[in-house]
C-alpha cells in the first residue's frame, strides 16, 4: 500500500507566507529572478538541524505567522525571526528540532525580534519544481504554490525524511551561534561596480548616517530613506546584471537595497554590494527599521564569506542528500 505524503493544512495564511528554498539558478539570462529565502542562512540552519540538504524547501513566514494543522506526525525546526510559535498553545523552542504529533496546531504570536521566520520540516516541503526550484517568485507567478503566497485551505506536502531525521529530535543550535537580530544593524558592504559614479560627499554620507527602511520595501528590495547620495554625472547606466545586496541609487539619490526577488538586471548606478555574511541581518528588518553601512574591501568580504561558512560547517556539517 503506498504511503500517503504527510500534509500540512493551512488554516490561516498569516501576513505573507511563501514556500522558499535557496533559489533558482541558471535562468537569469532569460529574465528569471533567483528568489529563494530572504534569510538563506536561517533556512539553511533549519535544514542542517533536521538532516535535510541545505536547499530543501521550507516556509518563509513574514511578521505575522500562519496557523497550520499537521495531519501526520512531523519533525520540524523553526529558525530566523522569533514570532512566538506555539503547538496547541505550548511554546515551540526556536533553532531546535521538535517532534510534532498528528493533529498539532501551529500558531504564531508576538514578534519578539526579526521579521522572517523559517519553518523547516524533515523531508522538506515537496511539490513540482519550476525551472529546478520550489522558490516562490510572486511577481512573475513562478514556483511555490501556483506562483503565489500560501492561502487559506492550501495543503502542503512533505517529502520523505532522511532515515537519520528521527535521531535529530532535540538537536539545537548552540546559543552562542544564534543570530541576534536588531532593528538598526550596521551591515558591511563592498564597493559596487559604479562606486566611482558617486561624489566623495556621497561616500562619506553613505557611511556616516543611518537609512530607514520605508514601507515601499518587499522581497524584491528595500527602498531606503536618508542622506541624499549625489552622482558625479548620471544615475543611469546601460542595463547590466544586479544581485542580492546591490545598492542601486536612482536619480532621486535615495538608495535601494536589492533583496532575494530582485530582477536579474538593472539600469541604475550601483554604489555598493552588501556582503553575503550580513545579508541575514538585512533580511530580518521590517519597514521602520534602519540600516547603517560600513565599507570593507572585496577581499575582506570574501574572507568573511569563507570563514562564516567554515564555522557553520564545523558546528552543523552539511548533510548529503
Amino acid at each position, binding site marked *: 500500500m503506498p504511503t500517503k505524503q504527510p500534509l500540512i493544512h493551512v488554516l490561516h495564511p498569516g501576513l505573507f507566507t511563501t514556500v522558499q528554498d535557496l533559489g533558482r*539558478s*541558471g*535562468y*537569469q*539570462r*532569460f*529574465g*528569471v529572478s533567483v528568489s529563494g529565502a530572504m534569510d538563506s542562512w536561517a533556512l539553511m540552519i533549519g535544514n542542517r538541524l533536521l538532516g535535510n540538504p541545505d536547499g530543501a524547501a521550507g516556509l518563509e513566514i513574514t511578521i505575522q505567522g500562519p496557523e497550520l494543522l499537521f495531519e501526520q506526525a512531523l519533525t520540524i525546526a523553526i529558525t530566523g525571526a522569533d514570532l512566538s510559535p506555539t503547538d496547541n498553545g505550548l511554546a515551540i523552542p526556536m533553532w531546535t528540532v521538535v517532534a510534532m504529533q498528528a493533529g498539532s496546531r501551529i500558531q504564531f504570536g508576538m514578534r519578539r525580534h526579526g521579521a522572517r521566520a523559517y519553518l523547516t520540516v524533515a523531508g522538506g516541503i515537496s511539490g513540482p519544481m*519550476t*525551472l529546478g526550484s520550489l522558490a516562490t517568485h510572486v*511577481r*512573475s*507567478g*513562478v514556483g511555490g504554490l501556483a506562483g503565489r503566497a500560501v492561502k487559506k485551505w492550501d495543503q502542503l506536502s512533505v517529502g520523505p525524511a532522511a532515515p537519520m531525521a528521527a535521531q535529530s529530535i532535540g538537536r539545537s543550535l548552540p546559543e552562542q551561534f544564534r543570530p541576534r537580530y536588531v532593528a538598526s544593524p550596521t551591515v558591511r558592504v*563592498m564597493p*559596487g*561596480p559604479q562606486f566611482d559614479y558617486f561624489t566623495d560627499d556621497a561616500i562619506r554620507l553613505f557611511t556616516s548616517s543611518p537609512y530607514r527602511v520605508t514601507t515601499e520595501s518587499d522581497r524584491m528590495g528595500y527602498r531606503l530613506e536618508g542622506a541624499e547620495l549625489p552622482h558625479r554625472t548620471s544615475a543611469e547606466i*546601460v*542595463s*547590466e*546584471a*544586479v*544581485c*542580492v*545586496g*546591490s545598492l542601486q541609487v536612482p536619480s532621486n539619490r535615495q538608495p535601494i537595497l536589492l533583496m532575494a526577488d530582485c*530582477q*536579474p*538586471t538593472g539600469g541604475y548606478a*550601483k554604489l555598493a*554590494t552588501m*556582503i*553575503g555574511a550580513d545579508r541575514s541581518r538585512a533580511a530580518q528588518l521590517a519597514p521602520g527599521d534602519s540600516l547603517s553601512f560600513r565599507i570593507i574591501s*572585496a577581499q575582506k*568580504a*570574501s574572507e568573511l*564569506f*569563507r570563514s562564516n*561558512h567554515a564555522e557553520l560547517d564545523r558546528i552543523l556539517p552539511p548533510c548529503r542528500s
Partner: protein
Amino acid sequence: MIARMIQLSESAITVEFGDTIALSTNDLVLAFTAAVDQAGIRGFIEVVPTYRSATLYFDARLTDAGTVMKNMRALTVDTAVSPSRPSTTHTIPVWYGGAAGPDLPDVARQAGLTAEEAGELHASITYRVFMLGFSPGFPYLGIVPAPLATPRLPTPRKQVAAGSVGIAGTQTGVYPQASPGGWRIIGRTPVVLFDLHRPKPFLLAPGDQVRFVAIEEEEFEQLAGDQA
C-alpha cells in the same frame, strides 16, 4: 578585448566589453558567454549576458574571485563561431496601433510620420535580442530606427497587457506577461514569449534575431484564439 573585470559580490564577477549599446560589443559579450558556458570553470553557477557585459556567478565556497578571473582571462573567445551569428530568426506578428498600441500616435508624431508609417518603419528591420531581463522572457531588442527612438513614459502604466510591444529610447521589447511598465506601447503580439508548460519555456534567447510583421486586429484575434 575585455575592457574591465569587477567583483559584483563575493560570488559574482562582471566582465565589461564596452560602455554603449552596440552590435559589435554585444557580439563579444555573447561569444564570451558561449565560451564560459563550455569552459567548465570550477564552482561555475551561471553566466548572465547583457548589452555590454557578462556576469559570472560562482560558488565562493569552491573557488575565489582571483581564480575565476584567471580562468576567464584564459578563455579563447571566437566571435566567428559564437551564437552572435544567430541561426534562429523569429517572426513575430504585431497588431500596431488602435487599442493594442495606445502610444503609437505619439511615437509617430514626434517622428513626423503617420501611425501606419511608424508601424511599417518598426517592422522594416531585423532586430538583435541583446539580452533578456526585467521579467521572465522579456527581450531587449535593438537598435530601433532613429526616428522612432522615444523616451519612456514620464509615469509608468500600472498595467501593460501581455504581448505589448514597446519602445524605450533605441530599445524595443515585448512584455511577456501583464505587468506595470514605462515603455511606449505601439502594438501587441498574440505570440506567447514565456510559457512554463512548453518544453522550451522561453521563445527567445540572447543573440536571436526578430522580425516583426504587421497584422490587422482580426488576424490578431484569430491567432490569439488559436493559442488559447
